């Protein structure tokens, strides 16, 4: 983990309120693993903003992030022209266990803005020859992104809450269609993670969590989540954001 200045190489709208940004980095690109996040400082803001790494390109020395405009900070980020310099700490947190995992086939389950880190992970698995299935849920048609990219990784089902694109329903409505995977990886809203971990109780899985953060590095106890451990808690920023399903209490 390091503090470094990253340069915005490109910024483009992906879907409604959803922005893709490619950043030139020296340090983070070398160290980053799927599931980790960058912690961005924005002028005029006291707290940094955590954003997951959506793609890592070691050759070009870039990382990609995808973020949804939900408040003042992401609004500001969405207006940064190429050439802007962002102060980032990272890569923060613990990655998905993608190397030591020993899977033959995995199921990725993403909801909304939880989709980006799964793309990074899926690419990683693909490169290792692991089979990748994906179920991605979005609010509605205009929020859908990265469908083609996921299809390139493997079989992909898209659902939308209102059925305006793909199938109508929640990700949990279609999970039963996939059987041939040994581990699942999920990222998305808390409600989705609750439903998914319950439904797939008997399958090994990993989930990625969100919480409002202070330090972002494990020092301030802002981002605690209850856990089935002796201590009774985990820090999302440094013990997570990725946890083994069942390790933390949703």
């Amino acid at each position, binding site marked *: *983990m*390091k*503090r470094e200045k990253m340069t915005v190489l490109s910024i483009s709208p992906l879907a409604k309120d959803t922005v893709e940004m490619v950043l030139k980095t020296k340090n983070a690109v070398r160290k980053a693993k799927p599931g980790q996040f960058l912690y961005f*400082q924005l002028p005029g*803001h*006291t*707290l*940094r903003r955590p954003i997951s790494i959506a793609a890592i390109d070691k050759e070009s020395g870039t990382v990609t992030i995808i973020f949804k405009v939900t408040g003042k900070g992401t609004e500001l980020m969405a207006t940064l022209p190429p050439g802007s310099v962002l102060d980032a*700490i990272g890569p923060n947190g613990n990655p998905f266990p993608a190397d030591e995992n020993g899977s033959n086939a995995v199921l990725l389950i993403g909801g909304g803005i939880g989709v980006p880190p799964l793309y990074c992970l899926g690419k990683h698995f693909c490169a290792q020859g692991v089979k990748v299935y994906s179920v991605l849920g979005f609010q509605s048609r205009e929020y859908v992104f990265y469908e083609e990219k996921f299809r390139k990784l493997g079989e992909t089902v898209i659902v939308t809450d209102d059925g305006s694109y793909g199938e109508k329903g929640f990700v949990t409505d279609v999970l039963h269609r996939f059987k041939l995977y040994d581990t699942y990886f999920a990222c998305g809203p808390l409600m989705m993670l609750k439903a998914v971990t319950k439904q797939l109780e008997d399958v090994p899985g990993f989930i990625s969590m969100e*919480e*409002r*953060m*202070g*330090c*972002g*590095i*494990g*020092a*301030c*106890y*802002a*981002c*605690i*989540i*209850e856990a089935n451990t002796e*201590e*009774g*808690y985990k820090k999302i920023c*440094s013990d997570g954001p990725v946890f083994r399903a069942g390790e933390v209490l949703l």
Partner: protein
Amino acid sequence: MTSLQVNMAGLTLKNPIMPASGCFGFGKEYSQFFDLNKLGAIVMKAATLEKRLGNPTPRVAETPSGMLNAIGLQNPGVDNIIRDELPFLSQFNSVIIANVAGTTIEEYEEVAKKLSATGQVDALELNISCPNVKEGGIQFGQDPELAKIVTERVKRATHLPVFVKLSPNVADIVSMAKAAEEAGADGLSMINTITGMQIHLPTKRPLLANNTGGLSGPAIKPVAIRMIYEVYPHVSIPIIGMGGISSAEDAVEFLLAGASAVAIGTANFQNPCICPEIIEELPKVLQKYGFNTVEEAIGKAVNR
């Protein structure tokens, strides 16, 4: 060469800069970013007798030039801190200050005793000003009589210098400061956070699960400066100043108002290297305003 050394309450700090309690954990995380030996002192996260899980989340919120926190004194408990955290900190040649919290006077005493017995702690900071726990904490910090009692009792339980950390949520900060001094405090830490709240419009509820939280960051700097300036002429014990410091200029403002040393809290979250950066800038800023040593600057803005 500008001397940054500060002597206060029997401690010798190589410079007046330290991270504030609760914003630096027990140092490990920040040691990834810089050599902790650079720090004048290190103030640990609050310790209570038993481990505490703190408040429900969300625990932090951003505010204009500041933040709210309602961590609720989460910590592993004094025994675990002594076992797991102190050995790491004691490798560094910075002054180590332990922040002591509790619900009862006995708890403060007990925690103070245990920390003092380690031989690895150089001073105690008595946190009688945490606004984020239901019992203990701030009530000691809003009543001069209670502040006096807890200070006296802790003083009897330790051989270490004791800094009493004052709450700004009072009408009369001077009487709180005097009470602490009369009770034998070796120094004061000022200020803890100001109680605040943010409402989350989408849920129409307070954003923090605890409803209220403590306001920190540059927003509260003018309040901290005012309180230190008010207290300084009325006490003869040193003051560790804090509240919104994020530059060497800010630090010098606190020195001029009467602080002998300063602590940096919220700014660590923005810039994990803020402490060493301020330490590096400090001699230049002192010199720019005509000071050759830190000690020359202390209290210079105050007509005592």
